[in-house]
């Protein structure tokens, strides 16, 4: 049987991979995918915690956490929609999706 620690480690690794993608990749689309991975890592931990730490009252998983997961998924979708719209607008104006090309604003 997998334990809670298994899930948490896997979720931590997923978060780290996402974070690594955000920090190291230069393509905004890929950075965005990395951010999605991070959010999903949080979802995984949340569901794991909710399943493993049963409520003492009725011995059921804490569904509040799953509601939060639901909200996170919704928000992530909205964020993707707005983000991609901004990226498309940027691409139309500048023909690039690379972070290094974002240099209009300088010190």
């Amino acid at each position, binding site marked *: 049987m997998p334990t809670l620690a298994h899930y948490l480690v896997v979720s931590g690794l997923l978060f780290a991979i996402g974070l690594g993608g955000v920090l190291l990749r230069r*393509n905004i689309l890929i950075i965005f995918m990395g951010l999605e991975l991070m959010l999903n890592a949080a979802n995984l931990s949340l569901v794991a915690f909710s399943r493993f730490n*049963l409520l003492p009252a009725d011995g059921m998983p804490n569904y509040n956490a799953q509601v939060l997961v639901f909200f996170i*998924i919704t928000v992530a979708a909205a964020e993707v929609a707005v983000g991609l719209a901004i990226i498309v607008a940027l691409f139309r104006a500048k023909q690039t999706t690379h972070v290094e090309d974002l240099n209009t604003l300088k010190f």
Partner: protein
Amino acid sequence: MQLALFWLFSILMLAFALGVILLRNPVSSAMSLVMSFISLAAVFVTLDAYFIAVVQVLVYAGAVMVLFLFIIMLLDLRAEKRRRVRLSAWLGGGIVVGGFLSALSQIVVSLPALHVPKPDVSQPLANDVALVGFALFRNFNLPFQIIGVLLLVATVGVVLLSRKELK
């Protein structure tokens, strides 16, 4: 059996996640992302969170990924040319990620409460849609409304930002 499934899907998920950030072609990255999310949905199933698993597939694999692929095709992005990766970025990223992982592993190792097998629930969880629904509409009515406003704003914003010429 559960452990085997867990490992299978977890490793798949992590491998595809690595693919997302390592592959050079945006289309391959997006496809890896989809696979990673589907594996994640399977991991959710091992946690008896069926509703979340279904939503995961529907929203991410169904909607978000299509959006990503659509944008990649629309913008006609090609595989990245090999760009020189700066050492400082790698170093900084490595430190942040390494710090995060080491802190996490220390915590996981030090907490005995985390090393317990899955406890049994008092009732079967087959109808967890109903349970999530109860929680959502009974307790979380207010946040739900806020999310509604958020989606409205996001819709308005997407229309504003992506139309070529506003009327």
